[in-house]
């Protein structure tokens, strides 16, 4: 467990799932630079510990490591219980945890589809549910989900992943309508091809082919997505809700 500091009312408290690597880790570092109290969760405790230390050095008010399998409902409940005890509030939830499935329709096991939905959709849903309960009392809050360009427009060999990310987009829009009355904003970012562990297995040839479809002619970096999330967590974004914001270098054009 990482070190903590008592919350003060002016310092935002932010929970980031999937914070041990990729976009989640990049978001953690961005929000650390903004001085947030950070609550970092993922399965990989060692990875979280390393990121938490980097966050402290980057200026986080505090960085607490909360190792958790997000598909374990009781464990997720325990995480939120700890947040309630430690900070009594939550200002930002970043649902960055997710997994990818690259397989054609006929070669996708239903068990794989269910595992994908369990993490990408159900776990995000439960986190939104519990976060909204913490946020509703303060009548303010901000939820950012990780959707995908694939969820918006589909991709060959990614039907399961696309379905799960489309579900995230639908969830985002519905919650923006439902939670707006409680002062809670809900948005999603929809990355295109971002260089992370999830895309590390792509061959150089496949990356080259993808880049030919991207207006900017290159893949994206996790920090570029994190910068957008950081903006959505700022007061400058206080009138933005219900949006699925593409960050894909023009891939979706």
């Amino acid at each position, binding site marked *: 467990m990482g070190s903590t500091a008592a919350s003060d009312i002016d310092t935002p408290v932010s929970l980031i799932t999937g914070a041990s690597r990729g976009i989640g880790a990049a978001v953690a570092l961005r929000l650390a630079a903004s001085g947030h109290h950070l609550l970092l969760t993922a399965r990989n405790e060692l990875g979280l510990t390393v990121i938490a230390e980097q966050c402290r050095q980057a200026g986080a008010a505090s960085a607490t490591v909360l190792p958790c399998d997000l598909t374990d409902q009781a464990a997720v*409940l325990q995480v*939120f*219980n700890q947040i*309630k005890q430690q900070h*009594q509030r939550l200002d930002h939830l970043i649902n960055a945890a997710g997994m990818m499935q690259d397989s054609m329709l006929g070669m996708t096991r239903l068990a794989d589809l269910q595992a994908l939905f369990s993490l990408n959709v159900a776990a995000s849903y439960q986190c939104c*549910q519990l976060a*909204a*309960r*913490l946020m*509703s*009392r303060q*009548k303010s809050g901000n939820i950012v989900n990780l959707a995908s360009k694939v969820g918006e427009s589909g991709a060959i060999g990614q039907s399961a992943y696309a379905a799960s990310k489309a579900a995230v987009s639908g969830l985002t829009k519905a919650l923006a309508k439902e939670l707006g*009355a*409680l002062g809670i904003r809900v948005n999603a970012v929809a990355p295109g091809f971002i260089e992370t562990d999830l895309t590390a297995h792509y061959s150089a040839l496949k990356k080259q082919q993808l880049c030919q479809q991207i207006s900017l002619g290159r893949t994206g970096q996790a920090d570029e997505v994190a910068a957008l999330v950081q903006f959505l967590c700022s007061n400058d974004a206080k009138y933005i809700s219900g949006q699925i914001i593409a960050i894909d270098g023009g891939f979706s054009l």
Partner: protein
Amino acid sequence: MTAANHTDLQISNTGRLKHAFATALAIDVARISDDLAYNSIAEWDSTAHMLLIAELENCFNLMLDTDDIIDMSSVQMAKTILSKHGVVFEHITTDHAGSD
């Protein structure tokens, strides 16, 4: 704990419950009775219900599960559900438990 203390605690919890309802629903505390039910007044709609849950969780320092939230259809049911979590009220009845 003495009988007097026990009574004080019960009254206190009932008062805290009523205050939580009045705050979440933005109504006068005098309107809070055991019979008050979800959707029976305009102020207790689905949005206010979520505020109510947050208020009760904060007031009694606990976290309710989803089934509890769905079942909390009246003040009486709120007492019944909170009593499962160790909150003591006077005149607890469980007649409504498990009802629709």
